[in-house]
């Protein structure tokens, strides 16, 4: 079981045993009751959207955009095909929450998509699943078969006049397809290159039709919000930061894994739940919201609470809730080198600032790490970052630039040491001791 802990769980409540993903188990937990209720009572779409707005559910895919508001952008009066698309293309280093939702609670995603489709007037849906988690793509397809056979998706659902067809589509190794318009291009059978916005997907989405794209966790939250009411969900968290959220903790803690916590939980509580630092080593820094969010030094993060507002005040972003924990054995130059390589590899090549800039960032960080850094390299790094951010079709450029700026700002002495002494400030022999690879079995 990799849901390692929770406080007041909603999404992960009752997920014991290896059958929790089955329809029967989901229904025993109260699953599909909300879809039945919505259809039996013909609850008006506006009432559902109002409940989601009241819950202050914010998109769990990284940007934190209010879900109710996004849903209200869909043009109701327009006839013809409309789509709801679930984004399970999770591939941002540090993020591994959606894979566990599909693993343990896929029917919550399916029910959330069906209710969402009803509320926004969509008649078809796709769940785009990261290519590397093939086994979970297969599992989701099996769950879809169960839901179809039970009449929860398909034509005239449960005897109502609401029809909704839902399918799974898999990626095949491209981080950029997590960006919602690249994802739509990819479903259309093309290279995953993001589109210019506007027009936004609500007016020009999949096959040019109105489309709403939401993250897996966002959609899985919908049935529970319907069940407990918008206000009650909001009150689980704190004002402007509704509900509970999954936090994926990786790196140097004793118990990495997913934790479901109310928004606003102190960061220190999460660290305790993770069993503290591996080997009792000292916390150095945390990347709080996936690799694209700025790094935060230990002293600052330990004073934060886990919600959009607190993390943003600390100069970073809650993002997807991926908490990457680094201890004192980490060389920050090496760490940034690994991230910069990633963005360079994953740039789709469409915009010049991103295609060329991510390569330059990687080259320079790499040469500093290799002991070939030159005076003035840090200024060049910062200037390139500035010239990428905000100048590209999608946010991958910003995602590549933000770590660079924050690593250099908070750990400038380590970068300077590298340039001046041609080696790491953290002694080489101490580095990566936290990895535990060779001693895990001792």
């Amino acid at each position, binding site marked *: 079981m*990799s849901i390692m802990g929770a406080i007041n769980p909603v999404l992960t409540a009752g997920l014991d045993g290896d059958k929790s993903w089955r329809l029967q188990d989901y229904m025993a937990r109260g699953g599909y009751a909300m879809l039945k209720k919505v259809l039996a009572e013909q609850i008006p779409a506006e009432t559902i959207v109002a409940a989601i707005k009241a819950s202050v559910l914010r998109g769990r895919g990284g940007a934190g955009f209010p879900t109710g508001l996004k849903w209200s952008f869909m043009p109701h009066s327009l006839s013809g*095909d409309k789509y709801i698309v679930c984004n399970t293309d*999770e*591939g*941002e*280093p*540090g*993020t*591994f929450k*959606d*894979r566990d939702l599909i693993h343990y609670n896929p029917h919550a995603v399916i029910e959330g998509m069906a209710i969402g489709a009803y509320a926004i007037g969509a008649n*078809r849906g*796709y769940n785009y699943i*990261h*290519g*590397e*988690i*093939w*086994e979970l793509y297969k599992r989701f397809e099996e769950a879809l078969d169960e839901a179809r056979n039970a009449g929860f998706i398909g034509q005239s659902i449960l005897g109502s006049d609401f029809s909704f067809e839902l*399918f799974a*589509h*898999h*990626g*095949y*190794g*491209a*981080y950029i397809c997590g960006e919602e318009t690249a994802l739509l291009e990819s*479903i*259309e*059978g*093309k*290279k*995953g290159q993001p589109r210019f916005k506007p027009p936004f997907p609500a007016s020009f989405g999949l*096959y040019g039709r109105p489309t709403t794209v939401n993250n897996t966790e966002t959609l899985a939250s919908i049935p529970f919000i319907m069940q407990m009411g918008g206000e009650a969900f909001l009150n689980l968290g704190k004002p402007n930061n509704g509900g509970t959220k999954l936090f*994926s*903790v*990786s*790196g*140097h803690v004793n118990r*990495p*894994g*997913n934790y479901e916590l109310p928004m606003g939980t102190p960061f220190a509580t999460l660290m305790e739940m993770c069993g503290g630092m591996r080997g009792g080593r000292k916390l150095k820094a945390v990347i709080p919201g996936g*690799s694209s969010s700025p790094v935060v030094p230990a002293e600052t993060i330990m004073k934060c609470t886990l919600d959009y507002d607190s993390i943003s005040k600390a100069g970073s972003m809650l993002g997807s809730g*991926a908490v*990457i924990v*680094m201890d004192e054995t*980490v060389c920050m130059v090496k*760490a940034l080198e*690994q*991230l910069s390589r*990633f963005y360079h590899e*994953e740039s*789709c090549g469409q915009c010049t600032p991103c295609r060329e800039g991510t390569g330059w960032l990687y080259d320079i960080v790499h040469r500093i790490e290799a002991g070939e850094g030159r005076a003035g390299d840090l200024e060049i790094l910062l200037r390139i970052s500035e010239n990428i951010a905000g100048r590209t079709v999608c946010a991958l450029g910003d995602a590549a630039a933000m770590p660079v700026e924050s690593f250099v700002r908070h750990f400038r002495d380590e970068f300077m040491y590298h340039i001046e002494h041609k080696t790491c400030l953290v002694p080489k022999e101490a580095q*990566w001791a936290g*990895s*535990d*690879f*060779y001693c*895990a*079995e001792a």
Partner: protein
Amino acid sequence: MFTPETLQKFDREIAKYPAEHQCSAVMACLALAQEEIGWLPPEAIEAVAHYLAMPPIAAYEVATFYSMYDLKPVGKYKLTVCTNLPCALSGGVHAATYLKEKLGIGFNETTPDGKFTLVEGECMGSCGYAPVMLVNNRRMCGHMTPTAIDALLEECQS
């Protein structure tokens, strides 16, 4: 060029999309073609394009854009190891080094017996299970300590 079973799987994918958008199935069909052949030779890409009534160049674009398509032959077992930062913190790079030593090859190389190809991968969305590796694009293995890697290699040898 494909078996009837593979063609049946193609049809199942095509049925997921509106009739006028059947090229949406190109990613899935290319993956299925690769599964049958072991890699994606140009003829297979063209055959998929033909089946979906799309220009071959459009299918090539897809095959070359996404990293899990193998445009060159690979060993019987392709091992993709994640070395990204979150994994590296928990042994991802060490696991890759361990594999290189055990197999006597580097990244993007195949053992002389054609058994194993080693590839460096990007985040697989499974960082909490680090070190992670993917076998033949399909099977995800987590917590790959030296013992677990030894066991996996042994399983592949038999």
